[in-house]
């Protein structure tokens, strides 16, 4: 599959999707979003891949939001369809049967922040600069961020991030719970690969079931969630013993 905005490769059971728009910033343009959808579909189907790492490479950014030059001319109808396209990508990442790790190597703004939040975990280097500049641009985010950010960092920190449109450091992101792990710059790529490979060494059936269950826990009441867990555990156990 020829990609223009990203590279894709699998090494030691880890599939890497590296955004590379060919400039300092990886903008989430319509083309990039469509390529990401293809890349995730490809790695979800690939039997050699058990976990996925999404990152920006080799520029300074993981990903920034949409192309403002394009967006300034959007009609409400264009915006509606753009949000639908972005949301369908994020839905695909969440329903991808493999763990997806966002490796945040630099600037992660707006839609890029939402992209990172649709992954299962976020690992960052000290270079991380993260924020949501919607209020500075006169908009809110349309990529599920208004739902995800408050659930990850709490409503109050989410409101501060949205209202100020400020850029936050890796340390601040760690304190708020927006990232799960933080590495020094020289240890970052090694740390990411090591962690992703360790996860990928586990049976995929158990990883997939875990991802589905934990995602379901957000929208299900406890009793239904437990019922789901019981059925999945029974099923997996039967699979391994036959």
């Amino acid at each position, binding site marked *: 599959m020829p990609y223009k905005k990203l590279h894709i490769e699998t090494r030691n059971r880890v599939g890497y999707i590296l955004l590379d728009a060919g400039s300092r910033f990886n903008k989430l343009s319509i083309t990039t979003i469509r390529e990401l959808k293809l890349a995730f579909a490809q790695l979800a189907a690939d039997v050699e891949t058990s976990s996925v790492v999404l990152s920006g490479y080799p520029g300074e950014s993981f990903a920034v939001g949409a192309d*403002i*030059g394009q*967006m*300034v001319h*959007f*009609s*409400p*109808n*264009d*915006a*509606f369809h753009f*949000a*639908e396209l972005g*949301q369908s990508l994020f839905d695909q990442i969440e329903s991808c049967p493999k763990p997806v790790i966002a490796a945040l190597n630099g600037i992660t703004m707006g839609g890029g922040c939402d992209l990172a939040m649709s992954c299962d975990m976020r690992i960052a280097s000290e270079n991380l600069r993260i924020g949501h500049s*919607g*209020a*500075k*641009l*006169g*908009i*809110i*985010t*349309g990529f*599920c*961020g*208004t*739902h995800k950010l*408050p*659930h990850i*960092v*709490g*409503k*109050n*920190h*989410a*409101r*501060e991030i*949205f*209202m*100020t*449109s*400020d850029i936050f450091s890796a340390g601040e992101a760690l304190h*708020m*719970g927006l990232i799960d792990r933080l590495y020094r710059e020289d240890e970052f790529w090694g740390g990411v690969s090591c962690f992703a490979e360790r996860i990928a060494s586990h049976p995929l059936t158990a990883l997939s079931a875990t991802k589905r269950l934990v995602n379901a826990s*957000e*929208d299900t009441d406890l009793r239904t969630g437990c019922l789901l867990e019981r059925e999945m555990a029974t099923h997996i156990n039967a699979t391994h013993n036959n």
Partner: protein
Amino acid sequence: MPEKLCTIQTKTDGIAVLTIPGNKSASPGELLEALQRQISFISGKHEIKGLLLTDSGCGFCQCHTDMSMSGHDAATLSDLGQQVMFRLEKSGKPCIAVIEGECTGLGLEVALACDFIVASRSASFGFPGIAAGLIPFCGGSQRLARLIGKSKTKELLYSGDIIDAGEAHRIRLINRLYDQGHALTQTEELLTHICTRSPHAIRIGGEVVNTGYDIDMQAACMLERDAFALCFSSFDQREGMQAFLDKRAAQFKGE
């Protein structure tokens, strides 16, 4: 006099400072009514862009805690309290609680209804009412659990313990911790900074965050998608993006 429970000062930069020390001889109902009047006043003023709620260092929203009343009166008081908190939450203007002294009981309930809380190192937080058999009644148990998680909320509510500002920051009850004597000025700067952003986006974003939090993700994302599209019919969107492209500061109108 209710005005002394809750005073308002409007600054030239569009920021209203609501000082609510309360008064130990006032009843919770009197305090809530005073607060309600001020919120109604502020909501109608277009020139007020942001709100600071503060205690002036001597305790936030203090009132007497004698709650010997009938079940019916307690329900009426709780109705009033919850309505006032919803009104505060829906003012449509950014609202920060700045705490320098004791913020307990009703004070913590009011602070929790603000967009977020900041404090100086001298501040303290908690719900000590449990010793007298009291629980939060303005939505505080629900807002606190959503903010810091169920376990921490139960720990605070069961024990009645008062925690200091450092601990409140660690458990993410407060967003920022300031050195003593600097909280009010630094928060005013922060709010002034927020007020340079699009009031339209802040208002819509706040509503989508609040409404989306308690519904399932799919429904919340649909709501967000529609609200996002609505932004593209606003003056603020055109101005904000054009200003970004022109590398200048945006002049928002909030429409």
